[in-house]
């Protein structure tokens, strides 16, 4: 089965690099869990401190997710606009710039070259190269849409989300002398990315996949997309306030942040119901059972992670005790996995067979890997949560020392080392499977009976 548009092929190297960085991210993550569980000798800590490996872990996450989104966009936009990509060459150039910058930054961290701001450690002038890469991307996609003159809501949401994403990164560039103002705008990048711009991208990609794998009318999907986007932005923008409770901002943020962020699970719930509704009311069979499994699994874990685990500690009365503890870590892991990791993997499984010219492929390994990773991640979330509750109670409620609490949490980090190894197994299986997709066995069969 040939590709509808030859320039869709540019997505392939994006996917391959993203997948390799994903595996690397998880390997570094296991080291982080180990650093919590056992004593790392002083000599090694002096050369390779926790701060360095933590920066690598988080930057690899952001880098591979963004490369995944970009590859996905390049795969989708020709079909959506019914035009070839404006310039395939620019797409490759952009990949070289962004992946090159990212890898340089990660190596730089090892030598202490850092901006020293969590999650946004990429130092000057590399951060400006990121902007250049993003501008090339927006130009390339924008020109494709502009020349096609075929306006759809899905395109609009996707492109809007990407522009929003790029604009927000700019708030990371200046140096803020006041620590409180620094963190105020840090959240304009981080929060408005994951609970704003990235949600627009995710909603658009999910809508597009649903149009492709079910036969539900586009008008219906696009109508509900409007409602979802409206709710995402209504709750998400003012919901930024749930990060402003304790940073030196006025007290009204406790009200605004509490109320708006408590509503944040609603649009995600709508997305779950939406996907479920389309899939149940389809007329034909599902085209590609694994992609369907991933779509449902993604929306459910998106709700569990971003919605439920977020809601648990978003109200100021609770957040006063949980803020800056392992409870945040539990939420961070399951939210990123449910919302954005599975989204990327779903799309990889949709696009990779087509990029390799396979009409149908053997879905057994991929399905096994999905369940393996999802169950492991759910267990990891529970382990982080137990550690977080211990920390909250011992350190913040009882008022005992920081290390006293950490000693009680150590056991759970030892568990997390093993869960991390298990996750790595699932990730390696996913990566290998995607890179070596095999045609479906000749016997007609629909997916394995893993469920």
């Amino acid at each position, binding site marked *: 089965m040939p590709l509808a548009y030859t320039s869709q092929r540019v997505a392939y190297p994006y996917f391959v690099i993203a997948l390799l960085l994903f595996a690397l991210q998880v390997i570094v993550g296991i080291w982080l869990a180990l650093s919590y569980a056992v004593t*790392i000798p002083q000599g090694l800590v002096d050369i390779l401190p926790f701060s360095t490996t933590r920066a690598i872990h988080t930057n690899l996450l952001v880098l591979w997710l963004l490369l995944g989104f970009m590859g996905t966009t390049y795969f989708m936009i020709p079909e959506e606009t019914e035009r070839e990509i404006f310039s395939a060459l620019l797409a490759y150039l952009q990949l070289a710039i962004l992946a090159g910058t990212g890898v340089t930054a990660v190596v730089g961290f090892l030598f*202490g070259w850092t901006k*020293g701001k969590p999650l946004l*450690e990429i130092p000057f002038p590399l951060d400006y190269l990121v902007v250049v890469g993003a501008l090339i991307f927006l130009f390339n996609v924008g020109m494709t849409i502009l020349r096609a003159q075929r306006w759809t809501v899905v395109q609009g949401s996707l492109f809007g989300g990407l522009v929003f994403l790029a604009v927000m990164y700019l708030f990371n560039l200046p140096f803020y002398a006041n620590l409180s103002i620094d963190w105020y705008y840090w959240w304009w990048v981080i929060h408005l990315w994951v609970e704003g711009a990235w949600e627009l991208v995710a909603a658009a990609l999910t809508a597009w996949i649903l149009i492709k794998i079910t036969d539900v009318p586009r008008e219906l999907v696009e*109508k509900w997309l*409007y*409602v979802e986007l*409206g709710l995402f932005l209504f709750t998400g923008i*003012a919901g930024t306030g749930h990060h402003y409770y304790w940073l030196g901002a006025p007290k009204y943020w406790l009200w605004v942040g509490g109320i708006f962020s408590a509503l944040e699970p609603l649009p995600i719930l709508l997305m779950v119901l939406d996907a479920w509704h389309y899939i149940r009311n389809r007329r034909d069979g599902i085209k590609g059972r694994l992609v369907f499994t991933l779509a449902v699994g993604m929306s459910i874990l998106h709700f569990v992670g971003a919605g439920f685990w977020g809601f648990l500690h978003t109200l100021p009365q609770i957040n006063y005790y949980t803020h*800056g503890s392992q409870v945040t870590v539990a939420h961070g892991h399951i939210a990123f996995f449910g919302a954005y990791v599975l989204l990327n993997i779903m799309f990889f499984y949709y696009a990779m067979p087509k990029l390799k010219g396979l009409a149908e492929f053997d879905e057994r390994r991929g399905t096994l890997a999905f369940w393996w990773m999802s169950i492991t991640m759910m267990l990891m979330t529970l382990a982080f949560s137990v550690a977080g509750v211990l920390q909250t109670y011992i350190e913040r409620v009882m008022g005992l020392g920081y290390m006293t609490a950490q000693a009680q949490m150590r056991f759970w980090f030892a568990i997390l080392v093993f869960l991390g190894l298990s996750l790595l197994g699932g990730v390696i299986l996913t990566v290998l499977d995607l890179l070596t997709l095999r045609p479906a066995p000749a016997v007609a069969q629909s997916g394995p009976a893993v469920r």
Partner: protein
Amino acid sequence: MTNKLAKLIFYLGTLISLVLFLALTFDTHRQIQTLTHADQLSEQVVAGKQVWHKYNCNDCHTILGFGSYYGPDMTRVYWRRGSEGIKAVIRSPEKFTTWRKMPRLPVTDEELEELVAFLRWASEIDTHGWPPQDQKLRGETGRAAALGVSPGAVLFQEKGCFACHRVYGTGGQQGPELTHVGSRLSYETIEKVLTDPRSASPRATMPPPVVSHEERDQLAAFLAGLK
């Protein structure tokens, strides 16, 4: 739901949230100057923030609760350890850590002073009482500081003297006002009264304070100084 309504939800929802958010951001910028006492942002404090970034402290420690969770929160570290304590840990972390290590960083003496200035400034940010675990420190450090200056003043507070006596507008009114007691009574007289209140007046109802000899002398010194 009609298409029109769906679009309305999108535009209205986004607009309301955005306008509210930007308006509050504008107001926050005005108020944050006071809440963070931005007038105290000296060059040394700002240089200290750069030191904080340079050594990537924030990827192990949180500050204002943000960052990484591998080490304790730094918002109120100045209350916990004071400037000399902070310097000692950074100079030789291996002496202060047990099973979880902090790297030995090549921080210069000048950078150390700047970092302490930054952490001292940060410790005064109005965080609405966060973090909970450091809240009680405020009183304790206040007490420690006062103890260094005047142990008698601390005893006056701790032994409950304020219940009956008033000093500079604070305290009860059953007993005599003590704001200028040092100009009326000598150190020796005060010491006698503290040992046996009736030595000053047979009708005195004050119970003799439960204090050691040393504490009594400290109290007397404090009161004699109130002139």
